[in-house]
């Protein structure tokens, strides 16, 4: 018996207490990778089923071609592209063949022209070229997302579109003004380019490689696969990307690689510090775009913790950071990912994180996102084997006219997976906005899955807005899944408790707001970062 449910309604709530729910009255279900958009999306799929309106409907997702459990990553023959599909379509957008968006094409050309072509490589093959080829192909038929496209329904990217976008210069300018002192183990990436002089790679264990792909060590013998070869096999295999994924693919000057060999445990966390030195001043309309791209490969039994920090530099410059992180976690490996974003409040930040988890692997993400005028995180986690563990904790903070967006998809195709997702957002400004779209797809073979998702939002000012869409798509019939969403102001009874003990209302509010976010901050694995973030957030919430 196949029982499944799809919840495809957006709950939109403003601080005035109104909640609107949009139910698509005809749920169009497309059997596509990561599909599930409502109204208006005519996706090219094998079958489109239209169902009469049912509340809490049980819909039958019928796979036209049941996707077999994915075999190991390392045999490149099974590319999803070969399973009867039409050439890669951006699931988010309406593919109309032969249609190209002139703005996108223009941007693609500018990016191509800015980079040396073909990319420098000492090998016969070039992973970077492979990425560029795939990206340029898709860019031909992708248009800039508008508010009519489901994934961007509440995220307004028009200010990026209307700016004068140009790629950052290479090599990066004005490094000294940033005053970076490389203290922790890791890489410094400025404007998308790896800066070796400011990176500190002293104490890495043997076999671990962190750095640009160009400098990756080649193996002596032919039988052993070298790092670049492994990377080459794995990059670019991603069919759920959107325009921004492809822009990064086309425009990235270099690929940073973090490689952890089998069984190796890296004790110290590896820091990836991203700076944006170049930026336009407000009102100039200029928007330099940087496309840093990092590939992480953790082989069987390896363990590593990576901290990505997007720093603001000085001043409130306008720039667009468009990073991509691709992670492949081998069997039984552990990858802990901390992602801290505190960029300029006039900047655009659109990040893609694509994670592929082999069996028995573990992925933990803690995200604290406080900066950016528009900050969007697209997270895609693909389960490639049974018994995986996935934990996602995210905190979004919007203290001025900011939009904080998290679109996450967890695709489970194998049994006994465990996942927990906790998303918290605080909107403390009347023009601030937070968006959350969390999808968990439990497909047919993902039996005995234990998946939970919880999103809680705090609206502190009138007219602050939050749009949340928790989304569970379940096809398997022996699973334990839950999801919940709550949007509220601070609780009266708790505030009164503080007052009844002599603590004034303002202090009480600050304490309660901070403690709301503290649950996620406490998940950060490294105490030094935790302290830094706590101080930073306290300062943001309490500008005195």
């Amino acid at each position: 018996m196949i029982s499944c449910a799809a919840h495809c309604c957006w709950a939109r709530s403003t601080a005035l207490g109104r909640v609107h729910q949009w139910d698509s009255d005809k749920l169009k279900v497309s059997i596509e990778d990561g599909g599930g958009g409502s109204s208006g999306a005519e996706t090219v799929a094998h079958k489109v089923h239209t169902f009469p309106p049912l509340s809490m409907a049980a819909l039958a997702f019928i796979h036209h071609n049941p996707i077999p459990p994915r075999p190991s990553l390392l045999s490149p023959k099974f590319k999803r592209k070969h399973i009867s599909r039409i050439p890669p379509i951006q699931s988010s957008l309406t593919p109309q063949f032969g249609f190209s968006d002139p703005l996108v094409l223009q941007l693609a050309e500018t990016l191509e022209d800015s980079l040396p072509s073909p990319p420098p490589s000492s090998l016969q093959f070039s992973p970077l070229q492979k990425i560029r080829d795939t990206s340029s192909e898709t860019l031909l038929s992708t248009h800039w997302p508008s508010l009519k496209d489901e994934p961007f329904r509440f995220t307004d990217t028009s200010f990026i579109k209307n700016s004068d976008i140009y790629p950052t210069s290479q090599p990066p300018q004005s490094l000294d003004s940033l005053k970076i002192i490389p203290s922790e183990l890791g890489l410094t990436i400025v404007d998308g380019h790896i800066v070796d002089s400011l990176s500190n790679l002293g104490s890495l264990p043997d076999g671990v490689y962190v750095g640009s792909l160009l400098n990756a060590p080649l193996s002596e013998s032919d039988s052993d696969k070298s790092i670049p070869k492994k990377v080459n096999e794995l990059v670019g295999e991603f069919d759920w990307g959107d325009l921004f994924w492809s822009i990064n693919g086309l425009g990235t000057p270099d690929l940073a690689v973090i490689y952890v060999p089998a069984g190796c445990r890296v004790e110290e966390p590896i820091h990836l510090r991203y700076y944006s030195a170049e930026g336009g001043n407000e009102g100039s309309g200029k928007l330099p775009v940087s496309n840093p791209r990092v590939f992480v490969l953790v082989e069987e039994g390896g363990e590593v913790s990576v901290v990505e920090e997007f720093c603001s530099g000085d001043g409130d410059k306008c720039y667009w950071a468009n990073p991509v992180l691709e992670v492949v976690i081998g069997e039984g490996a552990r990858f802990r990912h901390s992602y801290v974003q505190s960029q300029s409040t006039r900047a655009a930040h659109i990040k893609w994180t694509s994670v592929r988890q082999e069996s028995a692997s573990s992925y933990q993400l803690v995200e604290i996102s406080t900066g950016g005028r528009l900050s969007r995180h697209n997270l895609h986690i693909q389960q490639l084997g049974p018994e995986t563990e996935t934990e996602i904790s995210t905190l979004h903070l919007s203290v001025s006219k900011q939009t904080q967006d998290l679109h996450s998809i967890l695709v489970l195709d194998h049994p006994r997976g465990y996942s927990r997702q906790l998303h918290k957002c605080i909107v403390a400004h009347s023009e601030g906005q937070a968006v959350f779209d969390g999808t968990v797809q439990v497909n047919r073979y993902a039996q005995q899955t234990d998946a939970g998702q919880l999103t809680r939002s705090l609206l502190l000012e009138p007219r602050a807005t939050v749009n949340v869409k928790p989304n569970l798509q379940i096809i398997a019939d022996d699973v334990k899944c839950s999801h919940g969403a709550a949007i509220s102001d601070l609780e009266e009874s708790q505030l009164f408790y503080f007052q009844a003990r002599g603590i004034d209302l303002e202090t009480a509010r600050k304490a309660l707001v901070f403690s709301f976010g503290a649950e996620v901050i406490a998940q950060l694995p490294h105490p030094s970062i935790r302290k830094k973030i706590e101080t930073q957030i306290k300062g943001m919430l309490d500008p005195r």
Partner: protein
Amino acid sequence: MAVSASLHSHGASPLLSSSFPSSRPKPSPSSTTYLYVLSKLRAVRPLRLCPSLRFSSTAVKATTLSAIDPSTTSPPGKDGKLLLEVKDLTAVIAETKQEILKGVNLTVYEGEVHAIMGKNGSGKSTFSKVLVGHPDYEVTGGSMVFKGENLLDMEPEERSLAGLFMSFQTPVEIPGVSNADFLNMAYNARRRKLNQPELGPLEFYAYVCPKLNDLKMSVDFLNRNVNEGFSGGERKRNEILQLAVIGADLAILDEIDSGLDIDALQDVARAVNGLLTAKNSVLMITHYQRLLEFIKPTYIHVMENGKIVKTGDISIAKALEKGGYKAIAER
């Protein structure tokens, strides 16, 4: 809300003599029968001094309020200052405007222990919440004066800093804020008011540990979040710990005995008795006589239908146990 202009008669019964510490209920001006009943009661009631309180048995000092009716004299035997005076307090639920308190009169002097008993729904908890300024209730008439200050003009935090403490019947959970932080914040708020330097976390820890020991609570309790995952008894102990840390001139204990086992009750009662001095007072709300055996009350009031209808001493509690509230009402 204007403070009522004249002082109502202090139950000016000629039966009051200097050897009796008399009760302080405020009879409504019209009911002479009530006065009669009360005076009868006073005549019959034996003198009872609470052994745990330290009274100095000298003449009464005059009250601090103005416009004293010449026929009233603060009965001698009471030396404490007037702490709380509630006159004809009426209050409604803010949302529904339903009247809950219909004219409550109560006076509490320093060093006294008062107990309020009454049926469910009679307004006992509402009375205590109105005293501390809960936003769910609105005062529609009458006055509340605490240490000479009009409570109606004060915000809840100001009332608390003035020395009014309430232990909640159902304390709320505050996940994310640890007990240590919460107590520290409250204590520092007090210190700030008294223009004393605030205590940092370490010094505060040194200050709070002995109090934890008195209440037989373990130290790791401080790291837990406020009331998160606490059992009923633990929450009540937490309330008393807050009272011990912050201190109060008038502590209102709303059903402190509910949910406590006999040992926990003894610990809590011991702590409360230890905090009692000639300078501060306690107002307990309870249903059962058991608590009153540990914390001996000076006066017991019976509340019914939003008013205090009877005042007496421990004999009331015994009568209630025997015959229920009906027995009291008939008397």
